[in-house]
């Protein structure tokens, strides 16, 4: 049962990833990535991480992908690769490197233990949101707070970046007039 679920979800994730890579249209890419994220969320659930499953769906599949789609459509950047590639020689090299990386990762992965994950009493209570939350607010209190600060800074950064852009655009208009 688990294996079947894993195979289906893994296949969907791989298909989503490859399709994202191959799609000519950026909007299609984004949608395929959404598919991939959803598949990974399922895998999280399989790995007894219900909380992560939830935020994977809400934050990634929800917030981030919406943001992506929004920006793609705002900029009209669906298709920017019409011009010939100036560094086309890099394509095969990139492919080669990707495969090499894959090979390295596979070898490393095969070296890890292939033993099935243990079942039983200890596993049943593992990974419930309560234990994660407890850990988050005790041992990882400081990183947690810092994450909050980082988010705040990101918000301010985005605002500042856009503010500047507007100003320069306005001044550009002013000189244009």
């Amino acid at each position, binding site marked *: 049962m688990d294996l079947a679920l894993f195979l289906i979800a893994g296949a969907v994730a791989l298909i989503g990833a490859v399709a994202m890579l191959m799609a000519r249209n950026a909007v299609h890419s984004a949608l395929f990535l959404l598919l991939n994220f959803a598949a990974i969320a399922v895998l999280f659930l399989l790995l007894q991480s219900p909380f992560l499953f939830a935020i994977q769906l809400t934050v990634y599949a929800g917030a981030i992908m919406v943001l992506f789609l929004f920006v793609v459509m705002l900029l009209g950047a669906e298709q920017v690769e019409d011009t010939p590639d100036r*560094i086309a020689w*890099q394509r095969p*090299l990139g492919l080669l*490197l990707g495969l090499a*990386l894959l090979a*390295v*990762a596979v070898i*490393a992965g095969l070296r890890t233990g292939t033993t099935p994950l243990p079942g039983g009493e200890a596993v049943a209570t593992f990974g419930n949101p309560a234990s994660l939350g407890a850990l988050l607010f005790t041992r990882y209190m400081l990183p947690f707070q810092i994450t909050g600060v980082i988010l705040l800074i990101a918000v301010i950064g985005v605002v500042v970046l856009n503010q500047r852009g507007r100003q320069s655009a306005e001044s550009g208009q002013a000189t244009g007039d």
Partner: protein
Amino acid sequence: MLTWLIWLIPLLPLVGFLLNVFFIRQERAAGLVASAMVVASFLVTLVATFILGALPEEERLIQSVAWDWITTGSLYVPFAIMLDPLTAVMTLLVTGVGALIHIYSIGYMHGDPRVVRYFAYLNLFVTMMLFLVMANNMLLLFLGWEGVGLCSFLLIGFWFERKVAAAAAVKAFVVNRIGDAAFILAMLAIFSNFGTLNFYDLEHQGQVVPGFLERIPEIAGLTFGPAWQPIAIATGISFLLLIGASGKSAQVPLFVWLPDAMAGPTPVSALIHAATMVTAGVYMMARTEPLFVASPTTQSWVVWIGALTAFIAGSAAIAQWDIKRVLAYSTVSQLGFMVAACGMGAYVAAIFHLLTHGVFKALLFLGSGSVIHGTHETQDMRKMGGLRTAMPTTFWTYVVGAAALAGVVPLAGFWSKDEILAHAVAYGYWPQLIILFLTSLLTAFYMGRQVALIFYGQQRDHHYHAHESSRVMTVPLVVLAVGAMLAGFLNLPTLFSGMPAAHLLTDWLHPVLHEEAGKFNLMVALLATAGAVGMGYLGWWAYTSNAAKIKVGGKDPAYHYTGDLWDGMEQAWYVDVLYNTVVIAPFRGLGNFLARVFDPQGIDGLVVGVGRLFGWIAGGLRQLQSGYVRTYALVFTMGAVLILGFMLIFAR
């Protein structure tokens, strides 16, 4: 009292120098202050000398320490001066002749735009010269030695707008450097062998500072150098000192700077390049006489160098047209006499000749200055002639000086030169005697020639109106002429048995030089006088009777008889040419090679090459900086793969 009195002697001119440098701006004040200071210094010297003479003979050595100059390790050098009979003689000459030349300069330098500076230099020179002769140790002597060298440089190049003067100043400085280097080496050798630089024992703060001149016997047996050819220490030191003296006193082979030094103002030539500074070498040799006496090897070199210098310069003096160059070569020649006398052990005769020569050569130089002044800066004797009516005082004093130099009987030069020749006979220096005797004949000849060319015949160039110089210039001439007549009587030999002792100078210098009066040699005296008068007359006659053949810019009448030999004499036997080809030309060639080839292609090539190399490397490397983020990412990934692979293979 004497200990502080002697400090006044060098300090008065120093005060004059400082006043002239910092406060005085008017020509008149500068001349008066400078002259007054030197005159005062002369008077103090006179007083000090009389006080010194009143002391018992063994106590005639006054030393006075101003402060400890250098105290380091075993080296102790006080800033101290002394007064002993030899120093007194030199000091009297320096301040006496110096004072007259200062006064003369007031007239000669009148109207020069930098006259204040001139007097400042002149005062500084007198100060330094006094430190030189009054120093009680080698280092202070060296200070004065270098100080007068500096003043000589400044004054030769006083009219530095003239290229010739500037070049001559540099030449004098550079040539003297060779001698100075040897002097420094000698000083180091003295210190390493004696542990002191003081001349005489000096009692200072309850302790006796030893002096090396009284310790010569200690090194009598010591030698250095390879075992198969040991050299006595005394020989080594005295030979280095000889080289030093050769530089300062313009001896072969370092005499070439002195004729060129005539580019300076004429009073400077009189003071520095005739009467005082150039005699410093002779003075130094007399001062360190025990060292020289301890080394017969050096002494024989000294005699030969002196004799050769005398002859080479004497023959060169014959063929000169420039009024001052005649006197310059004559000075070199007479310095050769003095050095030869030192080499023969006749130190008193050397000092005696130094003294008389200082007087009559100063007279001749000042006379020539008066001629140059009166003929509006004419120096070529071919443009002169018949000046005796226009400038009678100059003429008569010049004749006295010329006769004194030539060695005509009662005048100064006769007595001193005769003493040297008599000594050579007495001690059997026959080859040197012949050379010196021939030189004295040449001396008489060129002085006769010069007097004839300047004062007799008709004026050959009428671009100027000759006139007698002013009183301020002629009075020193007269004083010096009187001195040239009487100076010889300072040290009369015993002419006939039963004559009262008249060798004052020998007695006076006895505490320092320990010499007995030389014997009078009638034969030598007669020959020398006859030769002097005869050759002097010959020179005069040859150039008055052939006056018509002398043309401005033309050849000498004697060229007709001697041919190329005359050219050789005119060029001082091509010593300068030799130096030019052997030393200067290769040096220039090397310099040119370094400047034109080695520097631009070697050094610059290297430097620029390194720069280009890095530019080239950077040019290659900047290709990597493509600006494409994806390429960077590619390289980044490559690195990641490599590191991961490495970890997989090696790190378990």
